[in-house]
């Protein structure tokens, strides 16, 4: 082997360091007022979910037929009562737990699996690419709502199965984005240069490909969270997700639908929560996208 000269000077102690790419992204993101507002709302919602036992004024499962469908502002029931006379405020607070778990979890799982598949397909090319991408295309042929409903129908109702179904729904789009970005990055000269240094595929992917692919795919994945929240609520609404008497926003929307003419405001509350959470995720994702959209 060619000797790499032994007696080299020690690394100079003072080297001017530029802030890394991600710190630049977060600096820019922190200047985006809208994104920061969305982030604040999301933090509050997550805190609400975590601290539910301390925040909820009443037992969310305790039904009192006398207090069915009380309007908003009833003393003791600040947000009214549901169709079984349970405290709406407490149910909304507790509902955030399952709604978040069910809506958010599939996205990071799909992000990891989809990125692995997409980067593999994009870097390997050829036959492996064809196999992975055509399989993804099969899933793509169905509208995401239909696919989610069909999959959780096939798997059977339940929280876990609904999450698995949503994960499967989101893997193909993540794979496709990851594959597209990888194919583009792979053809860049710095990847070629890395190949000329004799590095193996795993090392090139880890150091040269992934860091440049993860950003765009990550932004795309964050934009999926809002869709996932809505799909998760939809599955519960259809009875394919969480089962009564659990508190979950989508399920609450379903059980309250009969009250839409008697207490429209109360019936709309879970929907409003879903809307706020979903749009906050979406706004944050948009902010992240523009914060990352710089030549760097």
């Amino acid at each position, binding site marked *: *082997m*060619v*000797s*790499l*000269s*032994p*007696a*080299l*000077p*020690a*690394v*100079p102690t*003072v*080297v*001017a*360091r*530029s802030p*890394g*790419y991600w710190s630049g992204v977060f600096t820019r993101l922190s200047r985006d007022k809208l994104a920061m507002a969305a982030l604040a709302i999301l933090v509050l919602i997550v805190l609400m979910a975590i601290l539910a036992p301390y925040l909820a004024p009443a037992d969310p499962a305790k039904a009192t037929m006398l207090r069915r469908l009380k309007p908003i502002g009833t003393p003791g029931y600040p947000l009214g009562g549901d169709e079984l006379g349970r405290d709406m405020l407490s149910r909304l607070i507790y509902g955030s737990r399952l709604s978040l778990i069910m809506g958010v979890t599939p996205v990071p799982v799909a992000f990891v699996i989809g990125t692995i598949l997409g980067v593999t397909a994009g870097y390997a090319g050829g036959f492996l690419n064809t196999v992975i991408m055509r399989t993804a295309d099969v899933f793509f042929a169905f509208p995401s709502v239909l696919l989610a409903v069909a999959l959780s129908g096939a798997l059977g109702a339940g929280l876990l199965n609904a999450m698995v179904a949503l994960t499967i729904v989101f893997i193909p789009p993540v794979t496709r984005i990851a594959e597209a970005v990888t194919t583009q990055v792979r053809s*860049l*000269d*710095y990847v*070629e*240069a*890395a*190949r*000329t*240094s*004799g*590095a193996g595929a795993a*090392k090139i992917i880890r*150091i*040269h490909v992934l*860091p*440049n692919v993860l950003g765009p795919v990550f932004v795309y994945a964050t934009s999926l969270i809002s869709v996932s929240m809505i799909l998760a609520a939809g599955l519960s609404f259809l009875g394919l997700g969480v089962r009564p008497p659990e508190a979950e926003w989508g399920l609450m929307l379903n059980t309250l639908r009969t009250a839409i003419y008697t207490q429209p405001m109360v019936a709309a509350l879970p929907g409003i929560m879903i809307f706020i959470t979903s749009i906050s995720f979406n706004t944050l994702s948009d902010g992240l996208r523009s914060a990352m959209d710089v*030549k*760097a």
Partner: protein
Amino acid sequence: MTGPLSPASTRNAESVWPPEVWRAPKKTVLDPRDRGGPAQPLLSVTGLVKHFKVGGSPFGEGTVVRAVDGVDFDLIKGETLGIVGESGCGKSTTARLLMQLMPPDAGRLVFDGEELGGALSLTEYRRQVQMVFQDSYASLNPRLTIEDSIAFGPQVHGLPARQAIARAHDLLDRVGLEPARFAGRFPHELSGGQRQRINIARALAMNPRLVILDEAVSALDKSVEAQVLNLLMDLKQEFNLTYIFISHDLNVVRFMVDRVLVMYLGKVAELGGRDAVFNQPAHPYTAALLASMPSMDPDHRVERPPLTGDPPNPINPPPGCRFHPRCAVAEAVCSVKEPEMAATGTDRAGARHAAACLMRAAGSGHSRAPAVAVPA
């Protein structure tokens, strides 16, 4: 070790080195990696071919682009070989084939007496042959700091991270960039000239014997180009390098190289010493290429274009001599007979001068062909 990387140097690329000190490379330096002595070519290329299929489906026939269609040459140790030609002539594909970035359809590469794929492994070959690309920005990973980019190669080959970084700093210094200022920066914070210096440092980090410069200065501003050319000449001496210098700019090529290889539509049109090729081009295409250079003299502007039409597409190269449709001295035989490389003499330095033109081949049937072949 008396290798090229000793820690003492603090010389900076902008420092002045009196021209009288500098001599064209006539090297007697002993390279411990040298195997066959100075007479053995560093790289011997035989029958290199690369065809691309375009537009075809896995089932149907596409058209075939004959990007590189039988290229042979020997690279002499310590020389700078220029490769020139127009777009589509196959010079960049040749570079990528030499670098093994794509598999050739045919051809042998023999590096210092050892055949690639035989006695010489690809890993070992790649340690000795490095490349600098044209686009200084695209050839640096935007997420890596400069020192990490340079240190990547040595680390792949097992140098511990700390030493690899120290080596990167040393090389930054050699290419005229202060390590303390630049090592921790990212590519987008630097100018084109600085980035190209880093790409050169990255290539040198592998301690190669051959560096392929593929349009390495073409994207730089003129004032910066001169700096980088000086740097390349210094580094060649210092690191005992052999260069393949690919460029469309004939002025730069004339300045940089010892020998020139002219390519036309995937084939070698002419190969010879710099002065021979530039002063007495043997192939009509080379002559036209040289005459197309702007004159730089306001009183003697170019009055007539030496060639008409655009460089043809390598999809359907014309039969016979590929240059004959654009050639002013083409005869009937040129559209039938494909010319072989024929010797036209040797220059003062002893370099063989040859051209693939029927006018140079004895008994080819061209009215200007010599009666007797020039001895090679």
